[in-house]
């Protein structure tokens, strides 16, 4: 069993060092206390009603010892934690910046070359990256266990964190600060790519890294878009209630809108709702969906509509 998740950033090992140091110290003290507790309990178990017990009220030497030693150890833990913390909080000057925006309940990443992705973060192997982060609505928290990084995103304020990914692979990104109904669905993936693969991705050759390729049928592509763009956080495909209307049997349905009118869900309405979500909001739902204009291509929007139509 793995005690800690895979260590995939430059300082992950150091964080584990702190963790292990505290854990080992804790175990030593835990064993000391538990062994004494159990030993005393059985050794001095009551034998008769009138057992002799000594009148011991204290021992200054002992008490000084167990005040001073823990104090020193606690200071050491503090200092060790501080040293690693300092490194975690100080991004190197050459770190590549990525802008992160979190909103209920998706992650949006904007890269320096103008690209932007949703719920997928692409970084290059062995190249430090700095996340400049902002929340749109409520608190969120960027948490990648494999990198041992976590930082809250706060509306109205920029926060930052950095890491240097040292292992190629795919890692989970969680939202760690409670942010409402879709909190536990606010997940993303971090792709750490070799320099070659990364530059191919940067140039726009997406086949290499992501799976949506023209070889796929529109329905399959739409399904991919559904899971990749965080639609699932609000729109179920099995008819269960969520933050937004379910996609199951949505196409062709008559929905009553907030202004009291009714509309039949057709291709045009679906397209409009993806690109300008606030235009016609279905009654009983909050107007909280973000716009996907500029994030999805026309082809991808078409594919998504085909997919929604397929959910009977």
């Amino acid at each position, binding site marked *: 069993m793995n005690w800690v998740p895979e260590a995939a950033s430059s300082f992950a090992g150091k964080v584990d060092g702190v963790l292990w140091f505290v854990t080992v110290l804790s175990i030593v003290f835990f064993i000391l206390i538990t062994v004494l507790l159990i030993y005393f309990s059985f050794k001095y178990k009551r034998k008769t009603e009138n057992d002799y017990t000594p009148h011991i009220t204290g021992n200054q030497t002992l008490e000084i010892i167990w005040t001073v030693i823990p104090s020193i150890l606690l200071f050491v833990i503090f200092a060790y934690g501080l040293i690693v913390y300092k490194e975690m909080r100080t991004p190197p000057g050459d770190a590549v910046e990525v802008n992160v925006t979190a909103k209920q309940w998706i992650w949006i990443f904007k890269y320096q070359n103008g690209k932007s992705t949703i719920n997928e973060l692409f970084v290059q192997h062995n190249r430090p990256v*700095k996340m*400049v982060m902002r929340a749109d609505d409520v608190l969120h928290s960027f948490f990648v266990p494999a990198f041992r990084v976590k930082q809250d995103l706060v509306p109205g*304020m*920029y*926060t*930052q964190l950095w890491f240097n990914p040292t292992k190629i692979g795919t890692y989970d990104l969680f939202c760690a600060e409670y942010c409402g109904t879709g909190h536990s669905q606010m997940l993303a993936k971090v792709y750490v790519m070799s320099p070659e693969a990364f530059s191919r991705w940067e140039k726009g050759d997406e086949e290499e890294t992501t799976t949506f390729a023209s070889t796929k049928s529109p329905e399959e592509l739409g399904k991919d878009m559904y899971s990749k763009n965080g639609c699932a956080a609000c729109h179920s495909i099995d008819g269960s209630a969520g933050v937004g209307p379910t996609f199951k049997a949505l196409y062709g349905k008559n929905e009553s809108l907030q202004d009291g009118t009714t509309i039949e869900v057709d291709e045009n309405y679906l397209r409009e709702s993806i690109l300008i979500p606030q235009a016609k909001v279905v009654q009983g739902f909050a107007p909280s969906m973000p716009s996907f204009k500029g994030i999805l291509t026309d082809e991808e929007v078409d594919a998504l509509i085909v997919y929604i139509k397929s959910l009977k």
Partner: protein
Amino acid sequence: MSENHDEHITPYKTYIIIWLILMALTVITVYVAREIDLGSINLFVAMIIASIKATIVALFFMHLKYEDSITWVFALYPLFLLSLLIGLTSIDVFNRIVP
């Protein structure tokens, strides 16, 4: 029933004097803030004067001067905690880095 023990009874005259001092301090604080306008130390001066007034009220009107030490502790400790709340929160709010 026992007599009202060795408690201090402040004479009326003292209150009148204290009131006059408080009035004078009120005039001073208004005058300093509105006419002299010391700029950045305005806040500082106003708070000093307010604290003098508050101390006088506590000591004489509220008879803190004649209270036992434990009352003093419980009168001052909240002030210490308040300064802690302001101080330590400020350390956070005004030292955040902007990336």
